[in-house]
């Protein structure tokens, strides 16, 4: 199969466009009432995004799907600073890990003293598809303001065997059942035209 490269999409004028993948630590400053919306499809290596929301009404949405196989080691850091009041951030991360891959996700939300009325949400969920795969999630919330909304959640576990059995009991074979469930798990974060890549990945590694 062809090599699956990491893909980063950034919203410009209402459309997502591919940009070179941020290899090293990348600082993004969002000013005015702009919104930084990005989607990352991550197969290998590191991702390190530092996002500063500089002005009132600035916002960011970071959606990331990681797919880890073989002995890949993935390190993902998404660090958002609400440097102005009334700024919004959202981090949605979904991951699949198989073989003996190791994933570390570090999601940071910083709300200093002047960040009143800010909203920050972070949600990370991962499915482990082998005995040896490892996923570690480290949510960090650094909150100094007293009038903010902030949430984080993380869930890591195997696929529910009862779901597989239920699908099999309707005539669907195990492999198709896995594909349906895993596609459903990540599909809403990835634009349709890129879902062929996740399907490729599943066909290769599951």
């Amino acid at each position, binding site marked *: 199969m062809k090599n699956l490269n990491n893909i980063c999409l950034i919203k410009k004028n209402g459309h997502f466009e591919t940009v070179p993948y941020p290899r090293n630590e990348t600082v993004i400053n969002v000013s005015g009432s702009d919104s930084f919306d990005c989607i990352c499809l991550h197969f290998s290596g590191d991702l390190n995004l530092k996002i500063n929301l500089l002005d009132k009404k600035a916002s960011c949405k970071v959606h990331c799907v990681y797919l880890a196989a073989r002995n890949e080691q993935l390190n993902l850091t998404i660090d958002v600073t609400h440097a102005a009041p009334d700024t919004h951030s959202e981090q949605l991360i979904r991951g699949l890990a198989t073989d003996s891959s190791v994933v570390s996700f570090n999601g940071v939300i910083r709300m200093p003293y002047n960040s009143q009325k800010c909203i920050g949400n972070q949600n990370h969920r991962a499915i482990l598809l082998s005995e040896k795969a490892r996923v570690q999630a480290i949510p960090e919330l650094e909150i100094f303001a007293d009038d903010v909304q902030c949430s984080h959640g993380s869930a890591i576990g195997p696929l529910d065997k009862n779901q597989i*059995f239920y*699908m099999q*009991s309707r005539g*669907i074979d195990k492999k198709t059942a896995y594909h*349906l469930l895993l596609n459903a*798990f990540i599909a809403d974060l990835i634009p349709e035209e890129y879902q062929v890549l996740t399907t490729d990945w599943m066909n290769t590694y599951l």
Partner: protein
Amino acid sequence: MAFLEIKDLCVSVENKSILNGFSLTINTGEVHVIMGPNGSGKSTLANVLAGHPAYQVTQGSIYFKGKDLLQMSPDERANNGVFLAFQHPTELPGVSTALFLKTALNAKRKYLGEKPIDAVQYMKRLKTRSQALNVTDEMLKRPVNVGFSGGEKKKTETFQMAFLEPDFCILDEMDSGLDVDALKVVSDGINVLREPHRSFLMITHFQRLLTYIEPDYIHIMVNGKIVKSGDKTLAAYVEDKGYEEFK
């Protein structure tokens, strides 16, 4: 050749023995009911028939239409015509009921060497079966069983059964948690499917389901085997006297 022949079946879960020499023969077109106290192994029987991996068959045999059912994977059993309507249907987040049923139907067609169903035929079949069971378009778009009420889950189980048209329907406590109206809808849905080539095994605690669906045989199950069989009058007898004398 019997439609279904279970002989001397012994089953355990995590080394705990649940079925102890269970035998039952069902012929084509018959409706059998299994009643019994809690923990007598009724749901275990249903799950074993469908091929749940958590149950270990330690002895005995199950032949379905002459084939060794125990040698088949759960999906092979389904594609051969076995259907289990679950007592507690599993939720499938993100998988719409419509996509789920299309995948299931095409899996069966592929197994039988047929082409996938075309979109028009599929929609027609979906509409006909869903309307009969008050399953709305909105429910078909929702992920399978996610956020469904108890009644909606039982209705969609019945609907899935009607849609997939299996030969052997196992109904595990389809009446539990249903109000009178929903019970009527579900029972009607089951009755419509009663045909000479199709057989039913219904597990229930209550006689009330049997006021809507008339069974051919009733079996009382205690400690993992059938202790008494009879016609529908047996249900009324149990309702009146309880299971004590069978234990």
